């Protein structure tokens, strides 16, 4: 027998090799700056994402000022307006949401929730953050190069993205593409960590089906991202070559200002396919972690187990799979073969099935629950409503015949802000209110939280509901100014003013939120280890915030799933995942075998 055979069998089951050599920082620089601890990396990721997200937010204010009050603000001209649109869209989707959900929450929650000391490749994890930071810096620099940032729209469609007449074709678009390529490289390093940590580094007893849904959501979203980002990567590199070397991957023959360009016979449609092959899964890269987080938060704050856990897991996986075969619903008006349209409309509608299933399960989880209307819970309920709303307009747009007149109108803007703008952001807020106590050891201020929630929730509906209507009457998207048209009634202008005022009010609520975070870090009410009486492992750490290595001297051992709430016959209304069955206190009235033993009591 060769040693090779031996080697295959010799690998020790992970249950016993758990104790890893932890990396130890010896200098404050390696402890707080170039740190390999996933929790520190998570905070770095989150802080960077939120900062650049604030830039995206300010850009949206500028756009709204222009749309609400055209010709009032001299410093916004058509060129800069397009730059705002582009940078806003790109920043929000990629550099805020993707980075925050995967780099931020993924890094913080995966190791803690599966009971690992850290990510499996900590060094690579650290590099991932620094490459991300570099990508953000490169993107930011693009505002300041001659010609300014790209104004191509966040979809960066060629040929216009790199043709004369579009703002930012000198440096802006180049930096944008370089930044995207860097982002993807950085993400891939992080993504390998998230996937392999979930697969290989779980604590003893943490079977896949005992993982909290948050972990499932982030896990599947990471797989999607690993498979989808390469399409953006390839498209980005090819466009960069078209722009820098003058190749013709995407650039057709064109006459610009009376002269033939040197490009020949490229295929702009190819870009659209590559872009949306990434772009649609991207929606779910953001949505799946949100789904997971919502499931866990409503279960905890309604003191009830999640309804249909297994269905929820499968739905996440099914949505993930289906999201790769719907991309061309973004291309109904691109002139592609109508039979394609039929196919993609069908797949798009099929995705609604697992998604609706999740909706029902959330509602059934809340049904007869002991609902605590805490801030995280409020945000989650708001998410469910908002996602439902955006999902339904999505069914409209998924049909070719409805999409054609609505395409490129404000209706689309309203739709995608509902599903992937507002909805995930509501979950981010929910998650921050929920986990901030673990990250900082202090609670966020409840009253300010209420204020933040109601203004944000009602405000975003007042912003986006009217926008659907604007879309119906035909107000186009990505227009600097519509001026006078025969079909848009003057009342649209009043509505636009109203929307802009609402945007500023909602914006103010975010300032309050930021203040709440900063003040609470220092002055918040001490939270204790487990303020929400939650079952999952991150709440069972020895110290709060969790120390280096997460779980004190001994790794937790997991005995049950994460949804053991309000179990009959058990004294407390929750049983932590790592509490040995023998230690579960039973109520006096309970006699004989209770709690964990009778299966039928759990469902």
């Amino acid at each position, binding site marked *: 027998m*060769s*040693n*090779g055979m031996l080697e295959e069998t010799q*690998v020790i*089951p*992970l*249950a*016993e090799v758990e104790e890893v050599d932890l990396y130890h920082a010896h200098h404050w620089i390696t402890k707080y700056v170039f740190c390999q601890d996933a929790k520190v990396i998570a905070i770095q990721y989150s802080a960077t994402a939120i900062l650049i997200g604030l830039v995206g937010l300010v850009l949206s204010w500028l756009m709204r000022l222009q749309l609400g009050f055209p010709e009032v603000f001299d410093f916004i001209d058509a060129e800069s307006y397009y730059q705002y649109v582009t940078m806003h869209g790109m920043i929000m989707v990629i550099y805020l949401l993707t980075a925050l959900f995967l780099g931020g929450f993924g890094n913080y929650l995966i190791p803690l929730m599966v009971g690992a000391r850290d990510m*499996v*490749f900590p060094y690579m994890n650290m590099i991932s953050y620094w490459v991300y930071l570099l990508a953000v810096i490169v993107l930011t620099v693009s505002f300041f190069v001659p010609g300014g940032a790209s104004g191509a729209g966040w979809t960066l469609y060629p040929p216009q993205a790199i043709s004369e007449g579009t703002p930012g074709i000198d440096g802006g678009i180049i930096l944008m593409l370089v930044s995207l390529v860097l982002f993807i490289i950085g993400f891939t390093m992080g993504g*390998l960590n998230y*996937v*392999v940590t979930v*697969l*290989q*580094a*779980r604590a*003893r*007893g943490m*079977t*896949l*089906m*005992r993982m909290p849904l948050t972990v499932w959501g982030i896990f599947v979203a990471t797989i999607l991202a*690993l*498979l989808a980002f*390469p*399409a953006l*990567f*390839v498209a980005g590199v*090819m466009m960069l*070559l078209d722009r820098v*070397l*003058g*190749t*013709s*991957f995407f650039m057709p023959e064109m006459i610009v200002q009376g002269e033939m360009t*040197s490009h*020949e*016979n490229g*295929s702009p449609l*190819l870009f659209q396919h*590559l872009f949306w*092959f990434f772009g649609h899964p991207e929606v779910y890269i953001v949505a799946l972690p949100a789904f997971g987080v919502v499931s866990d938060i409503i279960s905890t704050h309604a003191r009830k*187990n999640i309804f249909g*856990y*297994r269905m929820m*897991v*499968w739905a996440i*996986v099914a949505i993930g799979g289906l999201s790769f075969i719907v991309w061309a619903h973004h291309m109904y008006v691109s002139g592609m073969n109508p039979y394609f349209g039929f196919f993609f409309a069908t797949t798009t509608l099929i995705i609604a099935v697992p998604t609706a299933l999740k909706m029902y399960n959330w509602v059934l989880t809340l049904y007869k629950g002991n609902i605590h209307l805490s801030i995280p819970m409020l945000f989650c309920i708001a998410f469910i409503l908002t996602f439902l709303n955006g999902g339904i307009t999505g069914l409209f747009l998924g049909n070719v015949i409805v999409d054609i007149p609505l395409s490129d109108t404000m209706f689309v803007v309203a739709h995608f802000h509902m599903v992937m703008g507002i909805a995930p952001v509501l979950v981010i807020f929910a998650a921050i209110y929920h986990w901030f106590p673990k990250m900082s050891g202090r609670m966020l201020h409840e009253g300010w939280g209420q204020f933040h929630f109601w203004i944000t929730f009602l405000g975003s509906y007042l912003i986006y509901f009217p926008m659907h209507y604007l879309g119906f009457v035909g107000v186009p998207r990505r227009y600097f100014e519509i001026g006078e048209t025969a079909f848009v009634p003057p009342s649209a202008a009043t509505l636009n003013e109203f929307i802009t005022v609402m945007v500023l009010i909602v914006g103010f609520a975010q300032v309050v939120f930021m203040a709440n975070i900063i003040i609470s870090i220092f002055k918040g009410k001490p939270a204790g280890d487990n303020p929400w009486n939650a079952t999952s492992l991150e709440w069972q750490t020895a110290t709060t915030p969790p120390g280096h290595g997460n779980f004190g001297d001994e790794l937790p051992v997991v*005995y*049950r*799933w994460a949804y053991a709430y309000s179990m009959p016959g058990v004294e407390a209304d929750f049983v932590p995942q790592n509490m*040995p*069955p*023998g230690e579960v206190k039973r109520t006096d009235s309970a006699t004989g075998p209770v709690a*964990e*033993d009778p*299966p039928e009591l*759990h*469902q």
Partner: protein
Amino acid sequence: MSLFHEMTKKPWLVDPAEANEVREVGAFFLPAGKVGLRVFLVVVTVIFTLITIAYADRMLFANWLPMPEPWVLWLNTALLIASSAAMQFARNGTKQDDMSGVRDGLVWAGVFTFAFLTGQLYVWQQLVDLGYYANTNTANAFFYLLTAAHGLHMAGGLIAWWRSYSRMRRGASVADLRLSVELCTTYWHYLLLIWLVLFALLLIS
């Protein structure tokens, strides 16, 4: 236990047999590094597949002017095969606790890989001299793109190679090198496979 089987579990039912006893985990009986490499190779596959699909799509266009395939490409292919073989040799060395085998294998793998990359650059130089610029025809552009993408992946592999190699120089034992050499070997074989597919694609177009 297969992943699928695992996913059919009903965690809310407590199986009395499992209640007190917790089972081991880790979805695969493999070190994290191996699982990580496999996931990464999937990502690499997606990248090359997408470029290949784009390539095939563009081949159908009317003004596609295929490039000549310089004979040096055949030589480079041989070099790449040699580097892969050398890696395998090193890998066999780690299995048989044969340090000198590991050393020879690693050194030669590095040498052949460097030679391959140099050869690829030479091909580029030759084509540019002949006037096949990336912007004269999309076939050329794809050729440069594919070779560059593959070359950069090889260069990335050389970083991993360098880390094993310098660990060996610093006196690491065979056991210490086993995993990293194995990972390098897998990566080299896989990139060889990708190169063969790409080369075949270039030849038939």
